[in-house]
């Protein structure tokens, strides 16, 4: 278990992958597509940071630049992979049988279970910015599954909305992790209460700034907190967009 931490945006891991050269078979797009990844936790070539948080193992803030940029079809097992599209469009093909186009606010949860492959591409010329969250499942080799939904930043503004997990309207997954989003366009104060004292909370600020308990977080800053009875979140008049991920240890 990690102790609590604050991770500033610039302190995250950073990797850039090109669609040419060594990574050309893995990274889609031609010519000169560029994929950048800011990692909150160790992943791939970035291995000098945090190992994860509770059941979370990957938190990637990724930008696919150049038409066709993304990940060519590749295999997975076991991990539950969620993608939240912040900007642009993501085309997602997976072996559960879906071909999806996801725009800003859309998200999916793909549980690779006993084995699946998927391909994720930005087919447009505008950049796509996507947050990726990988978590361990609560059982190994589950039947693969896939669910998608949409967060409406206007209709759902100024309240906490559960996107993934065991909650009304959320995409169900086979793990005790809940992902919620708050998009505020005014100053507000909100208390988030973890379901159990031993749960951890990882808060990631997408845009704007927020005060989370004692920590002042700016855009793309994040914090991990264990053992808090309540998380007090305060946003200012300029608004804020943030994700809250609650995980069992």
């Amino acid at each position, binding site marked *: 278990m990690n102790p609590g931490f604050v991770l500033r945006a610039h302190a995250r891991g950073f990797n850039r992958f090109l669609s040419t050269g060594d990574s050309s078979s893995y990274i889609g797009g031609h010519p000169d597509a560029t994929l950048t990844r800011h990692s909150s936790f*160790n*992943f*791939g070539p970035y*291995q000098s940071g945090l190992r994860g948080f509770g059941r979370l*193992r990957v938190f990637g803030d990724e930008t696919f630049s150049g038409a066709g940029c993304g990940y060519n079809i*590749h*295999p*997975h*097992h*076991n*991990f539950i992979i969620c993608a939240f599209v912040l900007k642009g469009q993501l085309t997602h093909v997976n072996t559960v049988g879906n071909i999806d186009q996801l725009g800003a606010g859309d998200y999916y949860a793909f549980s*690779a*279970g*006993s084995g699946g492959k998927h391909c994720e591409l930005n087919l447009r010329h505008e950049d796509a910015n996507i947050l990726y969250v990988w978590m*361990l*499942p*609560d*059982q*190994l*080799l*589950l*039947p693969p599954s896939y669910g998608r939904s949409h967060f409406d930043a206007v209709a759902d503004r100024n309240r906490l909305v559960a996107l993934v997990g065991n909650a009304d309207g959320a995409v169900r997954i086979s793990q005790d992790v809940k992902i919620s989003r708050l998009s505020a366009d005014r100053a507000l104060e909100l208390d988030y209460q973890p379901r159990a004292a031993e749960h951890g909370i990882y808060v990631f600020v997408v845009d704007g700034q927020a005060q989370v308990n004692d920590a002042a977080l700016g855009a793309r800053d994040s914090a991990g907190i264990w053992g808090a009875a309540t998380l007090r979140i305060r946003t200012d008049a300029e608004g804020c967009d943030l994700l809250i991920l609650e995980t069992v240890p």
Partner: protein
Amino acid sequence: MDEAFKRWLCLGCGFLYDEALGAPEHGLAPGTRWADIPEDWRCPDCGTPKHLFEMVEIPYAVGQPAARPAREGSL
């Protein structure tokens, strides 16, 4: 050896190595301990190096691990 068999998960893609089952299709016999796999071994699915696997204590889903298909030369 009395120690229980352990399960290791690739942090690059989720590939599972279960010591009890080995990975016969990749040349690792059932019962091969993680410690006995060479340090330069890599995930057969994604190439992630051995040291970036994590030991997990997660139960199998119902019906797993599925029986492996019989191969030529086996029963």
